[in-house]
């Protein structure tokens, strides 16, 4: 084939194939605005060259039609290139584009109206080549009347492009390097199209060749303009194109070979045979094409192979894992195998503390206690976005300007380059932090895509693991104190003891002193609060040195692996002292008596088995109780027998003669101090018990009431005699001092554990029905019934007894006063009963009650 014919068909075909391949590559790649605009340029070029090819083969509807389509493409090209240059130079201005679009519309109208090219055709002549006659194709056209203004528009646009490129270079506005290339390319295109005006040259596709060079320069311009991803796309594209070209050459050679031997194109052969032969050749080459393309794909996807494998493995692995540790391990492995990063950290959302805690580190050495608060702008960013963030973005985005220096410093110290959100159902459950890559290369978009995908996959697994862990924790946790419960403790005790090889493990057994009394006095709510506070103290002091549990009721245990008895003693003492001092802080003196007795035993020196360890720590704790409470005792080997002999009685102590003696001794002491109230306690006891009997209370309650009545003023021991016996009106300060006697009673009686059961009654005898009493301001039935009985009895006797400042009133007057205060100071129902008892003389009074008169 003559060279002119090769140029005639070959140049547009080559340009078209190249454009199409490039377009294909761009379609599948990730696009930004430069690529999008360049795709518009390519589209125009494809229209131009495709119609040039179709024109040459004289395809239906004919050469003139395809010529006009070609001119359409040709007019579009400079306009879109102008836009492309504007985008590259970052100087997009609407007005010139609007003007160009308008002119373009006119040019197109002129073109399709037949004013640009009036006629176009392919002239086929026969020429003799090597003695053989061969068809020779030529393109001929006649220009229309509007060719000059239309071409003028075309060239003005091209000059505008070159001018734009030069000015942007001159003003050193960005991307001058890229713009320079486009300027050169456009100049070449300008010269190429200029040749069309000379029909002698215009019949050859110089314009298309020049445009092709321009397009290639634009590709380089984009490439230079940091199109990292494009490198991959282009490399693959070029490889495709190369292999295609080689195969196409082979295919054409094959056809030529067949032609030589069979003379395919001779007029004697039927068209059917020719087509069949070509199809046959194509059938042979088609698998080769496919194979080649597959090969290219394999080569280029090899880099992706490790990523895809990592993803597949991770997806398979995590579905069966419920442990957060194991999920993090798998996640780190997947990331490591795909990206080869130096270190990987995983942070978990801690909803209670409103922060993210460091949970996992891929390094055994580089651990971190970095936490990320919810107020950190990274949190709000990841809550709203699903993409990963690089350190560069964090430094650049204005939103992250609110990060504290310490927060930035922590990320810098960990060498964090990428943070990946782990989300489940749109909720941020964790963060993956990645340090720099092993090869120190930056993370590319593919890496970030993979990481984001892994983060999303891990999200669901994280959620499941968290739910499982929460359920497990709930089963093992005491709901009140959030410490481990009895069941879990026994299991862990056994496991931990088994783990001990050369070291020691110590067990603290702790029991709160006076806790039953505390509960009786202040109710279960306050008791529970006290338990919570104490659990918090234990948790804080023990930290991660051991395992703390609520063993039951007011008993706590602490297991301290790796601690000997002495070390355990130090911790126990810290706990004991902290409990003592925190309860001393109460302004309410009556609450200042909660302490702890602690027993310690160690394995293997103190006990040979876990059961024995528990038992002996318990013995040591009882020893502490026996020795006067609020102390820590380490188990000694002979302690068991000792304890067996001295075990503290734990039942009720009612009616035991030695305690009764104590009561009378104390009553005598107060009677001796306050001569005016001599016998007051005894009388109050009688009145109160008589009242309580009529309520049908059981004997044990009557006994408590009696003893409480005898001891109710015991606190007056602590009040100076001159105040107790003062004849004048008491000052406010003295009244306050007198009021303190209730709390003082508690202080005295709490040191007599055997009498502690009377305390609620003693403490409540100055409370009022309307809640205006003291010391606690209890109202109505919140005051124990025995205390309400005692209150009436106490008031009645106080009014009927002679006082330093007044003579005793009659029983009648006293009763009237009590009745008057029924429902405000006293329980109204009890007042009615007391009144009946008095009127029926069921109560022996002194002075004697005489109906309505004073005796």
């Amino acid at each position, binding site marked *: 084939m003559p060279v002119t014919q090769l140029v005639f068909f070959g140049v547009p075909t080559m340009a078209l194939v190249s454009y199409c391949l490039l377009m294909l590559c761009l379609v599948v790649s990730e696009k930004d605005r430069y690529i999008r605009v360049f795709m518009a340029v390519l589209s125009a070029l494809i229209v131009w060259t495709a119609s040039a090819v179709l024109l040459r083969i004289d395809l239906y509807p004919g050469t003139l039609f395809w010529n006009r389509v070609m001119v359409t493409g040709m007019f579009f090209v400079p306009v879109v290139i102008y836009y492309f240059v504007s985008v590259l130079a*970052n*100087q997009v201005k609407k007005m010139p584009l609007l003007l160009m679009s308008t002119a373009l519309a006119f040019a197109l109208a002129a073109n399709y109206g037949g004013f640009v090219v009036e006629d176009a055709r392919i002239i086929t002549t026969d020429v003799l080549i090597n003695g053989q006659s061969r068809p020779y194709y030529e393109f001929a056209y006649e220009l229309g009347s509007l060719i000059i203004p239309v071409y003028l528009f075309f060239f003005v646009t091209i000059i505008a492009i070159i001018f734009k490129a030069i000015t942007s270079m001159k*003003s*050193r*506005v*960005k*991307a001058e*390097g890229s713009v320079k290339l486009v300027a050169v390319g456009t100049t070449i295109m300008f010269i190429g199209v200029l040749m069309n005006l000379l029909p002698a040259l215009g019949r050859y596709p110089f314009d298309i060749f020049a445009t092709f060079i321009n397009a290639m320069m634009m590709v380089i311009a984009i490439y230079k*303009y*940091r199109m990292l991803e494009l490198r991959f796309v282009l490399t693959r594209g070029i490889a495709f194109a190369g292999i295609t070209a080689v195969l196409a050459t082979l295919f054409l050679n094959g056809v030529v070979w067949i032609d030589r031997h069979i003379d395919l194109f001779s007029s004697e052969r039927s068209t059917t045979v020719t087509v069949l032969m070509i199809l046959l050749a194509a059938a042979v080459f088609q698998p080769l094409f496919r194979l080649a393309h597959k090969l290219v794909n394999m080569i280029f996807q090899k880099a992706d192979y490790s990523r895809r494998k990592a993803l597949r493995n991770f997806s398979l692995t995590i579905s069966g894992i419920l442990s957060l540790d194991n999920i993090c391990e798998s996640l780190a492995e997947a990331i490591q195998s795909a990206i080869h990063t130096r270190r990987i950290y995983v942070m978990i959302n801690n909803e209670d503390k409103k922060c993210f805690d460091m949970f996992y580190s891929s390094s055994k050495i580089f651990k971190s206690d970095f936490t990320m608060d919810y*107020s950190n*702008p990274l949190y709000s960013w990841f809550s709203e976005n699903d993409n990963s963030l690089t350190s*560069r973005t964090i*430094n*650049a*985005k*204005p*939103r992250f*300007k*609110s990060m*504290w*220096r*310490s927060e930035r410093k922590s990320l810098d110290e960990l060498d964090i380059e990428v943070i990946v959100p782990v989300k489940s159902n749109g909720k941020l459950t964790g963060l993956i932090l990645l340090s720099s890559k092993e090869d120190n290369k930056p993370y590319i978009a593919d890496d970030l895509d993979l990481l984001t995908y892994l983060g999303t996959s891990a999200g669901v697994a994280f959620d499941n693991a968290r739910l499982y862990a929460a359920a497990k924790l709930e089963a093992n946790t005491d709901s009140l104190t959030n410490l481990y419960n009895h069941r879990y403790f026994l299991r862990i005790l056994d496991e931990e003891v088994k783990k001990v090889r050369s070291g020691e493990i110590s067990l603290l057994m702790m029991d709160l002193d006076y806790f039953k009394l505390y509960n009786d006095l202040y109710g279960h709510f306050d008791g529970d609060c006290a338990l919570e506070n104490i659990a918090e103290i234990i948790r804080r002091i023990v930290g991660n040195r051991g395992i703390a549990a609520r063993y039951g009721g007011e008993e706590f245990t602490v297991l301290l692996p790796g601690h000997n008895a002495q070390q355990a003693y130090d911790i126990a003492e810290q706990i004991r002292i902290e409990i003592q001092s925190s309860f001393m802080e109460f302004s309410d003196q009556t609450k200042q008596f909660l302490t702890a007795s602690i027993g310690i035993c160690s394995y293997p020196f103190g006990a040979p088995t876990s059961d024995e360890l528990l038992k002996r720590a318990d013995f040591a704790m009882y020893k502490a109780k026996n020795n006067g409470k609020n102390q820590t005792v380490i188990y000694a080997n002979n302690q068991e027998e000792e304890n067996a002999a001295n075990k503290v009685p734990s039942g009720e102590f009612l009616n035991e003669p030695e305690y009764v003696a104590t009561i009378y001794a104390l009553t005598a002491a107060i009677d001796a101090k306050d001569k005016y109230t001599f016998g007051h306690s005894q009388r109050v006891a009688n009145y109160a018990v008589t009242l309580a009997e009529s309520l049908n209370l059981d004997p044990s309650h009557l006994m408590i009431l009696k003893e409480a009545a005898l001891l109710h003023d015991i606190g007056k021991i602590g009040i100076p005699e001159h105040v107790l016996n003062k004849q004048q009106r008491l000052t406010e300060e003295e009244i306050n001092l007198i009021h303190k006697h209730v709390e003082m009673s508690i202080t005295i009686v709490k040191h007599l554990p055997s009498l502690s059961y009377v305390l609620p009654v003693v403490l409540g005898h100055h409370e009022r029905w309307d809640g205006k009493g003291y010391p606690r301001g209890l109202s109505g039935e919140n005051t124990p019934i025995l205390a309400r009985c005692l209150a009436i009895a106490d008031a009645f006797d106080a009014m009927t007894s002679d006082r330093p400042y007044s003579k005793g009133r009659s029983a009648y007057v006293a009763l009237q006063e009590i009745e008057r205060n029924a429902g405000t100071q006293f329980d109204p129902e009890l007042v009615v009963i007391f009144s009946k008892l008095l009127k029926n003389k069921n109560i022996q009074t002194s002075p004697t009650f005489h109906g309505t008169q004073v005796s």
Partner: protein
Amino acid sequence: MNLDKMLKEKLYDDIWQEYCGFLDLSLQEYMDIQHRLMLEQIDIYAGCELGKRIFGKHKPVSIDQFRRSVPLSTYGDYAELLLQKSDWALPSKPLLWIKTTWEGGDKPEKWAPYTESMVECHKGTFITCMILATSSRRGEFSLDINEKFLYGMAPLPYLTGIVPHIISEELTVDFLPTVKEAESMSFGERNKMGMKLGLEKGIDLFFGLSSVIMYITRSFSEKNNSGGLSNLIKMSPKAASRLTAAWIKSRKEKRSMLPKDLWQLKGLICAGTDSKTLKDKIEESWGIKPLEIFGGTEPTCIASETWARDGLVFFPDVCFYEFIPMVELERSFQNPDYEPHSYLMDELREGEEYELVISNLKGGAFLRYRTGDLFRCLMMKNNGEGIRLPHFQYVDRCPDVIDISGFTRISEKTIKKAIRLSGVKVTNWFAVKDFDDEDRAYFHLYLEMNNMEISPVVAEEVIKDHLSVYFRYVDADYKDLKKLLGIDPLMVTILPSGTIDRFTLTAKRKLRKMNPSHYDVIEMLRMIGLK
């Protein structure tokens, strides 16, 4: 990656995002940054001696609590520790101590500590200003590596001296003259050398106080237009050709030669109290619209105009900003014990004037510090440019201080001291800031005197000269005005004895000593027939 590398790799969008991205913030996002960084500052502050003195035992836990519990402050509140440079008492260890004149203060100068974070931040904000100075549209700028930078500012330990030292880590800049040379030169020598080098190498960027830029412009015009091209033989061929081309250009347009004939600047940055009045003239002479920025020793560089040059926008991460409205300010002038109320950036109203109150972020020392600078809120958002942040115009110093060309600040205390030392028998006075025909600022002192024996006109000249001597003595920067800028900043008018009292009786209001109301001054002058 530093700015040099980013420019080399043509990461223009990233550069814009990093340095100017704050202009895309919504007001809410802006306030979130302010609040969070202020909480960090409170946290840092609470741990130091200064913090203990200001917060007492209770560290504020919220911004509201902070603003309620911490009173507004002035330099005097920090003077004891800062003048001694007591590093130990400060929230963070200072990297630098920056000096400025304490006009009207107990000592001639003030010192402010700059932490490493503050210096880093200052570097970023100044680069932002450079980028914006070379920009005329969002996202577009022409700042490049190796720009020729005529830097007409004071060296260390003044604030403006930091930039040449810190910027080199980020961006290679060709300072005219070099930083090392400049530091051993006087102000005049530096400018002269800078212009000379500019003639040879060209100038891309210029930063100076507006008053200084205008002074340089005037000196340039006088020198080049009087000497014609006679100096050409002393110049290098490059400088000579530049000058010749400029001369031809100016002759073609039938006017005197201007800096714009010699150089096509990429960016011109100006600052200072007189910027508002001088900007147009600067643009006329240099052929480029200057970018006004605002800064000070205590707050550092805190605001810049944008590419549109239509108002200052405060950087969100340099200081925590509060604003005292004029009404509150007036109340505090009348009653010095009154603690004026302040408002936050999102609580302002367009068109109103405010005194700026700053709290340093990033470990700085000043909390709720009254800067004494007045700003007008031009707009709460700039719809035209798509900026959703308030824009401001620098108005002036608060009326109790008269700022002259950004060089010196005359306070009531300064004037009283100068009068006392001069021995002039002044019975009453007031002072007003004014501008001459060439828009140069001066302060006009109206005096009442006893026993006027000579004619007021003669006396005014004599007293002016006499007082000028004492102002130069009392205020270290006062003499620089004449020496460096050729400005005579004082004008004296002698009023008939009792004029001010008569005005007080007639108008039934007291006349403020410093910058009284413009209309009050007119009324008074009318009263005595001077108007």
